[in-house]
Each structure stands twice: as structure tokens, then as C-alpha cells.
């Protein structure tokens, strides 16, 4: 990393995230003029977007090569009052909370009180949503049965496709114009709405071109007063580039990165899409530019790397907009889930790894910043050396890149009805979600708490935390003669809550389509221009809604305890079980030990437990998959948690698997913490029993210590473990290389870390099984090898 990048990186890492009301002020100003009354909703949104881009502060940081900030300076994070109008209390919490805080100035608090709240408070989409949904939706939401993504964030979740790198906005304007010309007012009852939408897109295209040209002007001004000859030249070059892109298609790698960055800013300034917008298959998109630049001696490999690193910093300068309430509890992080894909397959089905893929891995390793996140796509054709290079970065303990199975992704997408070319051009985004990049709106609608539903089933439909009847009366569990009867009751409850969630989705989706279209994003996602339809209204070629199922490990162990202890072995009666759960196991240590240590658990390649996992999967799949949304698309499931397993655990009392009240649930499809005691290959086997190909993504987390991965043997065998998982159609795996701190925690709480394997001396062992002195020694060694 050179001096310039070091400076930019340090700046990016040290600036404290703070709230900026710039966007809220300009939007309020625009709407208060009454101009919006004159236009249709999409056209008004486009004008508001344009007004914001024409008037916001233009920021070019010292030494930057790629320019443009969402706020007036790095880490100045905007609010979106038309989505969620923060109360003064919200601002206080944001300012003061220990983690993921945002500094709020007194001046901004005053402005919020005097101007923003009076205008937006009653008309934000958040208010509209809570006013429209049913009472049983509210009850389930408040009980923690599910969450709702769209109550304070826009339906984002899409990723740029190839066309962003091959077309300019003047060309898009031409396409919009053609689409308007082709409207058939005689036969298409929707023609007028389409024209409004297309006109709005046209305005938004102008807005982004103007915004870029303002950067060009600013760069020229800075160049005039710049003393360093070298920087002066750079600024002049930046001025030239911003004058050319994004109006025109980029010609060089530098232009391509700047072009994309303007698009990225456009998307995240228009609405708080929050989840994942990113350049997608970056090594594929950039390679033609890179090759051409090298051929014409416009660029060296080092300069290419410098540009990429300068580009990386830009992502890190944009923290995710602040979250409040349940959304903050479920996913409180500065990361905005940009997840760049490397490797995979080309659209002709051949291996896509190229020299730039390796350079990008270097960039990831050197930068080590929170954003953007990154992953490698591994198909059966992907060279081993690429996988091993990625593992060598992972072993440094930075948690990136994560690893995806390209062949599974393609089958998942084609099962959903996507064209195979679109599937090959797709990948994973956010955490693990699959998408046809550039052509799909794949909206995460909310997390779904199966463990809570099982608790409600045990209580005949009521929530023991509040005493409120939130589910169906499916019967007292004592009345179930067989496990199958009990399981059938659980299935009824799952179907009941999925129905509530889906009905809510159908309403919420319409509220967004009618009130807050995403006219800028519609320009860049196929086929919005051709259809004359907004991204939020079914304009994309594919429209998928996900419900994310959480706690597969916990639910499996929960059911396994009931089946094994009550029905099969008859060690426990329902009365006794309900009693000890009510007491949070107090005074029942022997039973607790039986539940945790002598009951079959998921993650050990034991079919007793794992078959229950498959049963649960099938229930949820049947309840959700294939059900329509309002955009001519379908609902699907995926299995991922972000950090919601902590929030979901906090609303559930003690559970029969031995989990104490309000403790976290398991995450993703990983086993319950510490319950996988047969090593990583058994975990992989258990996880592969899920039919990954019928999901839109699953998340598996595995822990290793740095010692385990120290030598080539460790890396080699880990690569084999991954290949074996992917042969079994596993979707994704990520490796958590644990720190000395974790090891110390494992010493104090060994039961939580029964699965932790450490490299000892020529062999590996379970950490908790080692003598204290040896544990101490390994901790010391781990500290030594840490960065």
C-alpha cells in the first residue's frame, strides 16, 4: 500500500460517523415549495432527487483518485425522513449509544424539532406501514416472531450488472426516449403511468450527469489553486473523467471505477436501500478495461492496484444509515453489506478467474477495512490456487473473503426460473443471498423466528413472555400422544405466522410502489426501462421476496430434545419439562446436563437430529416458496441471520435443548454454539442435509485458530473440506479464525466452546480438552501470530 492509500485509509478509519441533515434539509425544502403537488409521484421523486444532487455539497478529499461522497464529507451519514422520521429521542439514542453511534449536533436537533418532524412525522412510510398492517401482524412483530425490513429501509437488495460498465447515461436517456415512443396509448391501459415513470427516469439520468459535472467543476477549481504539480495534474484528470462519465460509457479502468461510483452514490442517495448495492462481479467487469489499459501502457499493475484501493476507501466512507428500534436490535452495524464477488463462471460457463481476480485479493488483504465486504465464488472449475490464495487471506483472521459455491448459486437461480446466462452472471450479495445481478429485485422482507413459534406452540398459542394470545390454539402439549401430533401443531402455527407475514408483505410492497418509487435505480436494473415500470413496482426482470429463516440449529435441537426425552426415551414428562423451562433450569442441573450432553444434536452427522432439521426445512419451504408477491414475482426462503439471532433469542425463554432464557439462538445453519462435538467434517455433513438448492442462500460459520491454518497442510485440507461441502451442494461457508481473546473466553466458559479445535504440536485437539497450562501456551502463541 503506498503513502497516498495509507493516508486515505487512515482518514477513513479514524473519522467518527456522524449524522448529516443535508439530505433531509434539501428534500424538505423541495417538498415544501409545493412543487411536488404539480407532478405525479415518480416525477416528483425525480425532481426531488435532482434538487438534492444540484444543491448538495461537493466533496473532493485531499489525495483522492475516485471522488464523490454521499454526505458533505466522509462518514457524514444522511437521514431519509420520507422513510423514517427520527424522533428527538431517536437522535439522543444515536448520539449516546455505546455501539454504532452517530454524533448529532445540537443545531441538527433543533432543526429536526422545528422543521423535519413537523413536516415528515405523520407522512413517513414507516407511519403508513404501521397504520395499514393488521393487528395480528403488530402482535407477532412485537412478540419477536418476525422483523420487517421495509419499516425503516427501502427495498434495496440488488446488484449492478454488466451494463453499468458498458453504457453511459446519455445512452440510457436514449433508451428511455425510445421506450416512451413505443408506448401504445390505444391498447395499453397502463401507458400513461409508464410515461410518467419513464419521464421520471429521464430526469434522474440528468441529475446524475449534473452531479458528476459539479465534481468536474470542483476539481478544476482545486487544480487552479493546487501547488503540487503532480496533484494538479491528477485534479485535472479527475475533472476530465467526471466530465465524461457517467454521461458516456467508460473507456479506461479509472473511468470505469469513477463511473460506477457515481451510480453507487445515486442509488444510496436516492433511498436508503441499505442492503448490498455493489458492483457485483468486479473482476469480470473491470478486466477488459484493465487489459486495454495495460496494452496501451496507460496503466501499470501497481497503478491499477492503487486505483482499486482508492475505490475501496470510498465504500468505507459510507456507513449504513442509522437504524433504530427493532431494526437496530437485529442488525446494528456500520456495514452496508456491499459484498464484492470474485471468481465464479463466465456467462459461457467457463472459469472466470483472471489476473485481476488475484490483484483484487491482494487489495482485500492489504486494505483490511470493514467495507466493502468480499467473497470468492468457487465452482468445480475454479483453480485450487485461487481458493488457497483466498484461504491464506482468511487465515489472517480478518473474516474476508467468504466462500460461495458457484455451481449451487446457478442451480438455485435456475430453479427459481431464471435464464442460465442470467444465473451465471449472478452471484451472492448482502450476507449470502443469491441474485441475478443487474436484473433482479430480491427483497429481504424480514427474519422469521421459528424458535419463538415453537415456544408459542408449547404454550397453546400464547406468548409466555407477555401472556398475550398471539398464535392459534393448537392444544396443550400434554394432550399430544405422539411426537407427530406435536409436530403437526407446530406446523399449523408456522403456517399461521407465515400467512400473517406474507399478507403484510403484500401491503407494504404496494405502499412502497405507490409512495416511494426508486426512479434512479430503475434506470440501471433491467427491464425497468423496457417495461416502463419502477424497480419498486415490478420493473425488474425478476422479482423475488425472501423470508429469512433463523435458528435452524436451535430449532432442531429443541425438537430433538422433545422427541428424544419425552416421546422416545420417556425420560421426561411434559409436566416436568414445562416446569423446568419455567424455572429456567434452576435446581435441575442433572436434567439440564442430560438435555445438553446426552441428547442428539444437529451438527454431528447424526440422522436422529438432522432428520428433524429436514422436516422443519420442508414445512417452511412449503409455507413460503412459490407464493406470489404483488410484482409478478414470488416468495422464497433463505437461511441467514445477520445478528438477529441475538435479538430473537432475547424474546424467547428457556428452551428444551438446554438454552437458558433470553440467550442467543444459533446463527444461520451453524450448529448451536458448542454442540457440534465431532469436528468440522461432521458439521459439513449435517449442514449438507439441508436442500440448499431450494433456498436463496444459507450461511454456515466455522471457527478455526490461526495455528490450524498455519502451514500448507492446514490450508490444503481446509480446501478439501470446502470442495467436499460444495460437492454436496452446500451454498456458502465462512471461516472465523479465532483470536486469543476468544480462547480466553473458552477457558472461562468451556461448554460454549466444545467445538473449538486448535492446532497443538504436530496435531490438533479440542481446546477445552487441553490442560490449563497448555491452553495458556496456545493463547500466547495465538497472540503472537495475531496482527
Amino acid at each position, binding site marked *: 500500500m503506498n503513502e497516498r492509500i495509507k493516508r486515505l485509509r487512515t482518514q477513513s478509519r479514524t473519522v467518527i460517523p456522524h449524522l448529516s441533515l443535508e439530505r433531509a434539509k434539501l428534500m424538505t425544502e423541495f417538498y415544501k415549495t409545493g412543487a411536488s403537488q404539480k407532478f405525479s409521484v415518480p416525477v416528483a421523486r425525480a425532481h426531488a432527487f435532482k434538487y438534492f444532487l444540484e444543491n448538495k455539497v461537493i466533496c473532493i478529499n485531499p489525495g483522492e483518485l475516485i471522488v464523490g461522497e454521499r454526505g458533505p464529507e466522509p462518514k457524514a451519514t444522511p437521514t431519509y425522513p420520507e422513510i423514517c422520521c427520527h424522533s428527538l429521542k431517536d437522535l439522543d439514542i444515536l448520539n449516546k449509544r455505546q455501539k454504532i453511534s452517530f454524533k448529532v449536533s445540537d443545531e441538527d436537533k433543533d432543526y429536526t424539532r422545528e422543521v423535519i418532524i413537523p413536516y415528515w412525522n405523520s407522512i413517513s412510510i414507516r407511519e403508513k406501514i404501521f397504520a395499514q398492517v393488521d393487528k395480528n401482524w403488530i402482535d407477532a412483530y412485537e412478540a419477536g416472531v418476525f422483523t420487517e425490513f421495509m419499516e425503516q429501509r427501502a427495498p434495496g437488495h440488488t446488484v449492478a450488472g454488466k451494463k453499468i460498465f458498458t453504457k453511459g447515461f446519455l445512452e440510457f436517456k436514449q433508451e428511455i426516449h425510445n421506450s416512451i415512443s413505443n408506448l401504445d396509448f390505444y391498447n395499453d391501459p397502463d401507458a400513461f403511468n409508464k410515461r410518467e415513470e419513464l419521464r421520471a427516469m429521464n430526469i434522474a439520468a440528468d441529475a446524475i450527469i449534473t452531479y458528476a459535472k459539479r465534481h468536474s467543476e470542483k476539481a478544476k477549481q482545486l487544480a487552479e489553486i493546487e501547488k503540487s504539480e503532480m496533484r494538479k495534474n491528477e485534479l485535472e484528470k479527475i475533472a476530465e473523467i467526471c466530465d465524461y462519465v457517467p454521461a458516456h460509457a467508460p473507456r479506461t479502468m479509472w473511468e470505469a471505477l469513477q463511473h460506477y461510483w457515481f451510480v453507487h452514490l445515486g442509488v444510496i442517495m436516492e433511498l436508503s436501500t441499505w442492503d448490498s448495492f455493489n458492483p457485483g462481479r468486479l473482476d469480470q467487469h473491470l478486466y477488459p478495461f484493465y487489459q486495454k489499459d495495460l496494452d496501451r501502457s496507460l496503466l501499470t499493475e501497481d497503478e491499477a492496484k492503487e486505483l482499486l484501493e482508492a475505490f475501496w476507501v470510498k465504500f468505507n466512507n459510507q456507513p449504513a444509515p442509522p437504524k433504530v428500534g427493532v431494526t437496530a436490535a437485529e442488525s446494528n452495524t456500520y456495514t452496508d453489506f456491499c459484498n464484492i464477488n470474485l471468481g465464479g463462471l463466465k456467462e459461457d460457463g467457463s472459469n472466470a478467474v483472471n489476473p485481476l481476480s488475484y490483484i483484487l485479493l491482494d487489495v482485500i488483504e492489504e486494505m483490511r477495512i470493514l467495507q466493502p465486504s468480499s467473497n470468492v465464488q468457487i465452482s468445480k472449475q475454479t483453480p485450487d490456487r485461487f481458493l488457497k490464495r483466498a484461504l491464506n487471506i482468511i487465515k489472517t483472521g480478518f473474516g474476508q473473503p467468504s466462500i460461495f459455491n458457484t455451481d449451487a448459486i446457478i442451480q438455485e437461480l435456475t430453479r427459481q426460473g431464471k435464464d442460465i446466462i442470467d444465473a451465471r452472471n449472478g452471484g451472492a450479495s448482502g450476507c449470502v443471498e443469491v441474485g441475478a445481478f443487474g436484473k433482479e429485485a430480491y427483497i429481504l422482507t424480514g427474519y422469521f423466528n421459528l424458535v419463538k413459534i415453537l415456544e408459542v406452540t408449547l404454550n397453546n398459542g400464547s406468548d409466555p413472555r407477555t401472556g398475550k394470545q398471539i398464535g392459534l390454539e393448537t392444544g396443550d402439549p400434554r394432550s399430544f400422544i405422539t411426537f407427530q401430533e406435536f409436530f403437526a401443531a407446530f406446523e399449523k402455527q408456522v403456517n399461521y405466522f407465515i400467512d400473517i407475514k406474507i399478507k403484510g408483505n403484500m401491503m407494504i410492497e404496494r405502499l412502497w410502489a405507490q409512495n416511494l418509487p426508486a426512479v434512479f435505480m430503475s434506470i440501471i436494473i433491467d427491464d425497468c426501462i423496457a417495461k416502463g415500470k419502477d424497480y419498486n413496482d415490478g420493473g425488474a426482470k425478476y422479482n423475488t421476496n425472501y423470508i429469512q429463516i433463523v435458528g435452524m440449529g436451535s430449532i432442531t435441537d429443541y425438537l430433538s430434545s422433545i422427541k428424544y426425552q419425552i416421546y422416545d426415551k420417556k425420560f421426561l414428562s411434559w409436566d416436568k419439562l414445562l416446569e423446568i423451562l419455567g424455572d429456567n433450569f434452576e435446581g435441575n442441573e442433572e436434567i439440564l*446436563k442430560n438435555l445438553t450432553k446426552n441428547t442428539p444434536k444437529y451438527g454431528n*452427522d447424526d440422522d436422529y437430529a438432522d432428520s428433524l432439521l429436514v422436516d422443519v426445512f420442508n414445512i417452511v419451504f412449503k409455507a413460503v416458496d412459490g407464493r406470489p408477491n404483488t410484482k409478478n414475482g414470488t416468495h422464497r426462503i433463505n437461511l441467514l441471520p445477520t445478528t438477529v439471532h441475538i435479538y430473537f433469542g432475547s424474546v424467547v425463554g428457556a428452551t428444551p435443548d438446554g438454552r437458558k432464557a433470553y440467550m442467543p439462538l444459533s446463527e444461520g445453519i451453524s450448529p448451536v454454539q458448542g454442540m457440534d462435538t*465431532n*469436528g*468440522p*467434517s*461432521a458439521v459439513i*455433513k449435517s449442514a449438507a442435509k439441508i436442500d440448499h438448492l431450494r433456498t436463496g442462500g444459507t450461511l454456515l460459520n466455522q471457527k478455526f485458530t490461526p495455528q490450524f491454518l498455519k502451514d500448507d*497442510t*492446514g490450508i490444503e*485440507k481446509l480446501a*478439501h*473440506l470446502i*470442495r*467436499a461441502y460444495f*460437492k*454436496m451442494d452446500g451454498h456458502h461457508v465462512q471461516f472465523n479464525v479465532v483470536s486469543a481473546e476468544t480462547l480466553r473466553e473458552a477457558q472461562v466458559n468451556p461448554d460454549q466452546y466444545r467445538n473449538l479445535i486448535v492446532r*497443538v*504440536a*504436530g*496435531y*490438533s485437539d479440542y481446546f477445552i480438552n*487441553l*490442560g490449563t*497450562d*497448555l491452553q495458556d501456551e496456545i493463547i500466547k502463541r495465538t497472540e503472537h501470530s495475531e496482527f
Partner: protein
Amino acid sequence: MELGIANSGIIFDIKKFAIHDGPGIRTTIFFKGCPLICWWCHNPESQNFKPENFINPKNEDKHSENIEIIGKKVSVSDVFKEIEKEIIFYDQSGGGVSFSGGEPLSQPEFLLSLLKLCKNNEIHTVLDTSGYATEEILKQIQDYVDLFLYDLKFIDSTKHEKYTGVSNQQILKNLIWLSENGSKIIIRIPIIPGINDDNDELNKMRDFISGLNNIQGIDLLPFHKIGKNKYIKLNLLYKMENFNEPSSELMEKIKLKFEDTNVPVKIGG
């Protein structure tokens, strides 16, 4: 005497994703019971042929929480079921099953039954052995073992008897027989300073190996004190308290010496 087929045997662990017990990803079956009692043994729980208790010494009240039973009788079919579950990993990595211990050759019928099942199912097999068994037993299992990890501790018989409890005459004879009858062998030498790291002993071992055929490699295993905690749990005397672990310089020096055999030498397993 012809070995029969056993239905069961006694083991103390099945370890999956074993990555240091032979090529690829392996499942290692740890047989319980060993005729040798090596001073430096890091698995003392493998020596006794019967199940026994590990007692956590930290709590004196001997509460059941602190007692762990080591060793259990298992059926051949149950062990093979666990072996079979991991086939996809063997295929992917060129791995298979390793029989370790304890001394697998001390439960010859149990071992042979498992070996035959593996062979029938085309699963690669490794036998990690002290070599202490009758020639008769060795000859009957030889065909079913793809790779031997064969321990060599001393050439000097008196020392061998002092530190392991048994003579090495049969062990050396067996090793020569295997090497002359086409078995692939990796020699594993524990390096224990003050016991077998003198030049005289090392030279003898080197020269002995030079005279063998089919040796695939030599693994030099540096002595470590990791097993000490287990001696405490078993209430056994740990005789190695005053011995030192070899330095990496010493290991490198010894490695150089064994490279004279023209066989690949590795430090660690």
C-alpha cells in the same frame, strides 16, 4: 493360527477430520490397550485394555461431572458406519481411515474385520503401529493395509526394554519383513532428548532404515509434554517431568542426519 472375524472391540475415540495421521482427510480409530508402556506416551489412556475413568483433579469431591469414562466396547458395524459417513472427504482429499491407538495389532480380529470392510469398499487404510505383534498376525493383516506408520524408537534392545517395557527384536523383524514384502511404510521416530537423541542411537536407526525397502518417508516427532495432564487425570506417575522438549535447532540437525537415507524426512506427523 487363522484370525477369525470379530464383532466388536474396544476403542477410546473416533476422530474425524484427522489431518495428521496419513494422507488427506482421515477418520482415525483409536484402539484401546497397548502392550508397550512408553515413558513419553502422550495418550496414557490408550494403554489399559479396559475402560477407565478420567478424574478431573481440580474438584476433590469426585462429583460425577468430573468423571469421564474413557474407552467403550463398540461393534464393527457401528465403527464402520462412522467411517462410511466420511467417504466424500476421503474421495476429495485422497484420504481414508487410520487405525491408531493404543496398539491396533493387539486386537487383531477386530482390526482385521474393519480392514476387510474398508478394502471391500475401496477405502484407503493406514495402520499406525508400534510393530509389536507376532509375525503370524502381521502376515494376515498386511494385504489390507495401504500404508504403515511404523514406530522406531531404538535399535538398542536394552534401552527399548527399559523405556517401553518390551524387547524390540520382534518389532525390528516385523519391519524388515514388511519392507521386504512390498508394504509401503513411513517410519516414525519420536525424538526424546536424553533418551534416544544420542548420535550413536540415531546413527544406528539411520543405518537400519537405509537397509530397508519401500520406505516412503521418515517423520521425526519431537517429544512434547502435552499428555501430562492426562497422567494426572488417570492418577498415574508422569516420568518425563525432568526431560526437555527438543529445540527446533536439534530437530533440524537430526533431520539432516536422516536425509542421508535418501528418504523424505519431515519434522512432525
